[in-house]
């Protein structure tokens, strides 16, 4: 790799070195430390030994899913952030910790996201994304029916809004500590928010699929359902009078 010309295709969604200035990075690092510390305290309250393996697996899954860039437009890709998945399965505090672990491992071992940008990336992807997703999910589940579809739609909406909110976090950071090159901040903000609507749709499809699959198999493992199984939609056998179902009686 030549100095000054990083191979573009190997960078990921994470903020690379020197895009945001030192003071801004430092402020967000402090915010991240305080918020993650608070999450740790809050997560311990809801955590028991039974949840540990699930939280570990969810973290590994988010790490793997972040490697899977999907095309969103010609020459542009996106990947799962994982905040919505973590929030739906584990709740906001433990969920935010999962994404934080992923971002730290990526920055320290995989050269994915600058070490100096760890605070910036944790604030956007672990904190903003996870808490936004959880808020949207909680609201949507109050309105929508507690069925497979209701949950799926809620998770889909939470994913899109959480990804756009995370990208808005970057816009804020760039406004504070970035240097406009080649385009105005306004144009850049519009482009970033716009592309992340598309990334969010991809994230929404994957996350809704994953969460509803878990909810059907093990509703007790979906934090957002708070221990209540999904309302089972009436099956065909129940909606039709038994006489019209010959297979059952005729056999």
């Amino acid at each position, binding site marked *: 790799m030549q100095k000054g010309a990083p191979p573009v295709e190997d960078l990921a969604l994470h903020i690379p070195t020197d895009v945001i200035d030192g003071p801004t990075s430092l402020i967000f690092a402090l915010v991240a430390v305080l918020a993650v510390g608070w999450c740790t305290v809050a997560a311990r309250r809801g955590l028991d030994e039974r*949840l540990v393996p699930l939280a570990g697996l969810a973290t590994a899954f988010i790490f*793997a899913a972040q490697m899977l860039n999907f095309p969103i437009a010609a020459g542009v890709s996106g990947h799962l952030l994982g905040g919505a998945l973590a929030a739906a399965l584990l709740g906001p505090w433990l969920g935010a910790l999962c994404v934080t672990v992923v971002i730290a491992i990526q920055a320290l071992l995989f050269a994915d996201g600058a070490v100096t940008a760890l605070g910036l990336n944790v604030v956007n992807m672990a904190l903003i994304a996870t808490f936004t997703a959880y808020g949207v999910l909680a609201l949507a589940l109050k309105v929508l029916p507690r069925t497979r579809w209701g949950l799926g739609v809620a998770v889909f909406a939470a994913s899109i809004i959480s990804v756009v909110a995370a990208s808005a976090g970057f816009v804020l950071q760039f406004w504070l500590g970035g240097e406009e090159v080649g385009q105005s901040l306004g144009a850049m903000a519009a482009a970033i928010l716009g592309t992340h609507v598309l990334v969010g749709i991809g994230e929404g499809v994957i996350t809704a699929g994953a969460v509803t699959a878990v909810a059907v198999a093990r509703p007790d493992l979906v934090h957002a359902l708070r221990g209540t199984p999904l309302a089972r939609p009436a099956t065909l056998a129940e909606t039709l009078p038994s006489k019209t179902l010959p297979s059952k009686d005729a056999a």
Partner: protein
Amino acid sequence: MKKFLITGTIVTVVLAGFVSLFASASPDGLESVLLTGCETTDGEISGGTCVLQATGDHEIGGVFADYGMSFLDNEILGASLAGILGVLLTLGVATGLFWLLARGKKPAAPANDVQA
């Protein structure tokens, strides 16, 4: 629970070690915007001016820099192995940290872990 965890781990390893090889190599949402104003050829910035030009190399690189293993000649094998090792490492680190955090906390209600 065991069945769920084993299935989940296998799916995750396959995603990172195999499916990831088919992932899109195009710049992602953030990068593509930071690249506005630059031209690229073969994934390298070849002209123009853009935000991404100013970025330096990663501070420490890391053993699995850019999801590969620099000491392996075979790029595909390196990418696949880096993905699998990354998943196992993440699984280990996360489970360890959460175990420390949960230490001494027993499930509040009797575990309703009958099926699966």
